């Protein structure tokens, strides 16, 4: 009878975490942060450079990959559409005499991550695997198993900078909203536009405070 229970348990093994992600798009994540004290409803105009700038994070100099610019147009247009829908007016250029309220920039980052795990499985090595007779039967630590996984991650970062509070002397401009769209650089190219679209939509959907009353 215990055998039956044991078999049932074996059958259920692997069921600890059912319905795990089966599509790379299910691993996409969007994180947004904003400054509570800002009245976003008072923001009327913005400038956004017409390019996605690839950057190299200081901590990822050795692992940064070339950023694929083939989707820049979609990223820029979709961001502009959302801002227009929220009531922001885009200015063509930055005019120091008539500055915009905010500047929106978009950055792209591609990084190769490598994770290495070392594990020591507690297998029951039963017997004498040494020579001439080094180990008796029993449970023991098995040989270490080294597992390496490598995956490429892409991020799109949309920043909103408050030009009204720019400190020209200190050359500082506060960031009042940031959206980080992060996903695995896997899956088909055909899937990429839909993933980008969903991520940008999510960024604005979860930031209702950006809207004008």
């Amino acid at each position, binding site marked *: *009878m*215990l*055998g*039956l*229970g*044991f078999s*049932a*348990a074996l059958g*259920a093994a692997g*069921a*600890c*975490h*059912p*319905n*795990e*992600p089966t599509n790379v798009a*299910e*691993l*996409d*994540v*969007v*994180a*947004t*942060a904003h400054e509570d004290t800002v009245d976003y409803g008072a923001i009327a105009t913005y400038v956004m450079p017409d390019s996605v700038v690839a950057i190299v994070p200081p901590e990822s100099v050795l692992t940064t990959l070339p950023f694929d610019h083939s989707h820049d147009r979609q990223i820029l247009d979709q961001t502009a559409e959302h801002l227009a829908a929220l009531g922001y007016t885009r200015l063509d250029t930055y005019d120091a005499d008539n500055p915009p309220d905010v500047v929106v920039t978009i950055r792209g980052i591609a990084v190769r991550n490598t994770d290495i795990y070392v594990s020591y499985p507690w*297998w*029951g*090595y*039963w*017997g004498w*695997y040494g020579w001439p007779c080094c180990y008796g039967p029993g*449970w023991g630590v098995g040989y270490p198993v080294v597992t390496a996984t490598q*995956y490429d*991650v892409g991020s799109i970062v949309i920043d909103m900078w408050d030009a009204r509070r720019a400190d020209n002397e200190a050359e500082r401009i506060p960031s009042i909203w940031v959206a980080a769209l*992060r*996903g*695995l650089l896997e899956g088909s190219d055909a899937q990429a536009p839909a993933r980008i679209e969903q991520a940008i939509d*999510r960024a604005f*959907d*979860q*930031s209702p405070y950006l809207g004008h009353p």
Partner: protein
Amino acid sequence: MRAIRRFLPFLLLMPLGAVPVQAQSWWAVTYAPSVPLSNTKTFADNASWRGINVEYKKAIKENVTAGLSFGWHVFDEQTDEVVSAFGVDISGDQFRYVNSFPMLLNVSYFLGKTGGIRPFIGADAGVYIMEHRLDVGLYTIHETNAHIGFAPEAGFAIPVRPNMSLLVTGRYNYALSAGNVDDQQYLNFGVGFAWNQGF
């Protein structure tokens, strides 16, 4: 050869499955679907179709048994709701899991007569080992705690052949808060068989 070495301990344990049933004792295995309640439902809303209970009872006096029960109940939910923490709003497909492993002592009182349908009520108390896990993107947040808990239980055993009964049970599980995890509650049902003697 190495495979044999690895599985030899299990092979040596297998005969335990053939231990003859003792008088006035009861072994039971039930398939155990569950319904989450309260905080468990908030975290993982789906009914659980993955679960198993194994229990042993031994008569300590007429119509009264004491024993042990072990279980494994899995809850999960996939959601894309926004999670806010530390001033950051995070969205993405979240995969949430609760794995509950109750290890309980139980006392049961049996109604009816030996050889007939035996309704019973019981009280279980012990420890729930619970793993809460949330996967979002490439990140995993998980916490495993030992929750003190208790579980009133009711059920009935229908004899289907000598020393064997069809078993139907219902159990309300309440696990107290532990670590950063609030108290957990769920209903769990059992359908299976009891190998018994003297019941």
